[in-house]
């Protein structure tokens, strides 16, 4: 019983740590920043082509996760 319980507590702990507003907002912010860099970089047209999708994804993610509990 105790052997089964330990991993579930560990899993819940990890989920609790990750599914909070702070880390999720940080991830969304990073995605937005990457999207903006992709939009303006002079190296690859392919990166430029995917920049809008990346920024949009980051922005939508930020809007959603800003409603997640603190």
């Amino acid at each position: 019983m105790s052997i089964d319980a330990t991993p579930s507590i560990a899993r819940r702990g990890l989920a609790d740590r990750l599914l909070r507003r702070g880390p999720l907002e940080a991830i969304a912010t990073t995605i937005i920043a990457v999207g903006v860099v992709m939009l303006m970089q002079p190296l690859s047209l392919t990166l430029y082509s995917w920049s809008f999708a990346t920024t949009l994804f980051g922005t939508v993610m930020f809007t959603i996760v800003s409603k997640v509990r603190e």
Partner: protein
Amino acid sequence: MNELSASSRITYRAVMVRPGVARRIRGLSDRTLAWLFITPTIVLLLAINIFPLLWTIYLSFTNYRANRANVPTIWLGADWYQSILTDPDIWAAMQVTAHFVIWTVVIETVLGFGLAYLIDKKFRGHGMWTTIILLPMMLSPAVVGNFWTFLYQPQIGLFNYVVAFFTGRAASSFQMLGDVTLSPWAIVIVDAWMWTPYVMLICLAGLRSIPDYIYEAAEVDRASKWRQFWSITLPMALPFIMLAVLFRGIENFKMFDMVNLLTGGGPGSTTEVASITLKRAAFESWRTGYSSAFAIILFVTVFGLANIYVKALNKVKSR
């Protein structure tokens, strides 16, 4: 009635209100009253902000042209987005924008922080110098664009004479606005001249928010001025600097008026920032659907950056 005092007049008017209306108003809940007050604002916001945004999103999926409004509108799906995001010319405009944004933000931040650091020392006449430094920020971009056009004139412009004085080159030997290499720097110089005071103000607020006792404790620990700067001043002013960087970054990403007045995107397309490309597509080529899609791409980018800005602002507020 004229002989009545002010309080008596108010009482008289209150009595004159029909009891039925008064009862109805008194019967409204706080929530309803709140809605009554904010409804005009919400309606205005919907009319001038939300509706145009939704309409632009719709137009970005169609072949609509504003100069041919009678032509039937055809749904094109994401064709315009695909076209813009694979167009090397638009990509080039984005790189011009990047050059403008990066260099203006770097120069404005370094100079702005430096000026704020000096002003914070509260030397004799620092108030007067603060006012003088803030003057460019108070001017209209149209005015700034016009008079810098004169300053950059190769024959009569003061800028060329100053450069000639320091470098020994002939004043008429170079054109800041007509040269392919120099014109991107010409717009950077003007923006830095105009907006460095703004960055200075934000940095000054950051520097003034650092309590004196921290420096006193550092003095007791015999920390050098250099050490105090790196360990106290810079880390504590950093959220404010970040705020200034984000604000100027967002503003310059959207820059239109000043660049349009100075160079109009030329020579060629060397200073054609994204907003000028957008204006040309919308009001010179009349490709309304295409320019709507381009506007939405720029909007999402600015909205994303604004999210980061709000996050940084909350961090500053929590201090």
